[in-house]
């Protein structure tokens, strides 16, 4: 999928985020275009999760703006942004353990008001993850890690997102499941959903991404097409171990 020249879907402009006195993000600029798959890399406490929370509005930046689909959404609530077409697969999946798979998916479609569209959404998710249809009445907390990952992705897709945010999709999964998980990510991406993937597993993330950003202690230190980043020397030393 070609990305050059596509319209901007999400843009962070000059974002400064603080927790109390602590400066977490410094003058962050980041962009995701329509249909693009972007990965955001960085080590522990580099500000990756805070970036996602700022995009979703769970954390308010002190300076800077968040633009989504050409609209300044900086002061808007999380639920407004989700209604406009964001969705997230959170770190560690964060399923609602004591609720069934079906109910978890329903929560993903919380803001969809009309019932007819919802049926199609369920069908779409069940086509992507046929296992979920079998397991729909099981409690989400009793599923295996890989199955939970499917529920988390299905839940995020229920709302028909324009932009899917993924926080550490490989975390806590067996290597074989990581591969499977990234295949699914690519599949979803090919259906036209733009994605921003936050990862520590830089190799895997860059191998499927169009572009990448590298974050270190709250600042962007590198950005560029995924292929070039994979070849970058500093990055290879720091993350790829070769």
């Amino acid at each position: 999928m070609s990305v050059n020249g596509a319209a901007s879907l999400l843009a962070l402009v000059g974002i400064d985020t603080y927790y109390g006195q602590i400066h977490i993000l410094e003058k962050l600029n980041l962009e995701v275009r329509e249909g693009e798959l972007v990965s955001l890399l960085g080590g522990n406490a580099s500000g990756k999760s805070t970036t996602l929370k700022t995009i979703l509005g769970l954390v308010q930046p002190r300076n800077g703006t968040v633009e989504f689909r050409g609209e300044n959404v900086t002061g808007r609530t999380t639920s407004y942004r989700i209604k406009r077409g964001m969705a997230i697969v959170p770190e560690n999946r964060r399923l609602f353990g004591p609720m069934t798979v079906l109910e978890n998916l329903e929560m993903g479609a919380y803001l969809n008001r009309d019932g007819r569209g919802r049926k199609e959404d369920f069908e779409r998710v069940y086509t992507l993850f046929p296992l979920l249809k079998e397991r729909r009445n099981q409690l989400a907390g009793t599923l295996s890690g890989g199955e939970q990952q499917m529920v988390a992705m299905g839940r995020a897709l229920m709302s028909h997102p324009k932009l899917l945010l993924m926080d550490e999709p490989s975390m806590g999964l067996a290597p074989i499941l990581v591969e499977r998980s990234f295949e699914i990510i690519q599949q979803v991406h090919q259906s036209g959903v733009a994605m921003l993937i936050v990862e520590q597993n830089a190799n895997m993330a860059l191998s499927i991404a169009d572009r990448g950003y590298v974050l270190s202690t709250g600042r962007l230190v590198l950005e560029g097409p995924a292929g070039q980043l994979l070849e970058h020397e500093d990055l290879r030393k720091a993350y790829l171990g070769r």
Partner: protein
Amino acid sequence: MNWSLFWDLTVSGLTLGSVYALIALGYTMVYGILKLLNFAHGDVYMIGAFMGWFALHWLGGPVNPSATAWLVVVLMFLFAMVACGGLGVAIERFAYRPLRNAPRIAPLISALGVSFFLQNSALLLFGASFRDYDTFHLIGAKTYNYKDIFLSVPQLLTIVSAIGLMIGLTLLVARTKIGKAMRATSFDREAASMMGIDVDRVIASTFFIGSALAGAAGVMFALVFGQIYHFMGFLAGLKGFTAAVIGGIGSIPGAMLGGLLVGLAESYATGYLPQGSTFQNLYVFALLILIILIRPSGLLGKADVKKV
């Protein structure tokens, strides 16, 4: 064995237990979603009893009601529930919401303050004397019986409507969208907001429902036992608390079970234990300690796992 005494105690225990169960539900729902002990809840119940009284008197009073008794009772319930629901939402908005991220002891103390404020406001506005619902004139003294089991109309009304409200609540939480959002929010608030759930609104709804149930409980208590006063919320709140803890705090069926258990225990203690009518509260306290020692997480609660 004196069966007639036993059945009398059972019936009054179930009546009292229905009231406690409704109060316990409010505690447990709020605790489930905010991990906060809402000390003001007992006083919301007290306000509910007073709102019922005012509704009764605006409708012409017990002797000369301006509509049929049944309609008056229904309107009393509705008015008390709506007023208490609103009060609960206001308490959450002004006393608890600003403290969402404060150290845990801060909202508890704020809750203590709200409780004291409500109690003394009621003392100031309604006076220190008892007020009477005068159910005798409103409904009459008719009783139903099956063999030895005697039920007065207000008792029947209390038990039946409490069961109705509990079924309604269970369905609401299990089936409806807002109910599911409540469960999701109480399990993981941030994940819920990531799904687009307006967490503030879900919490406000929880307070509305819990407080409305307390308001209904206040009217029920007053219909059965007649007299209301500004301090009545303290003990009832304490028993509701106890019921919620015994059942397992955070668990809705637990609160119902705990409420009935506390009501029955209090009633049987009054009848069977030495000096029960004086010390029934001490016996309930002993039951609380016993349950906490044997099963710290309550009868239907899950063991508390702390996040590291």
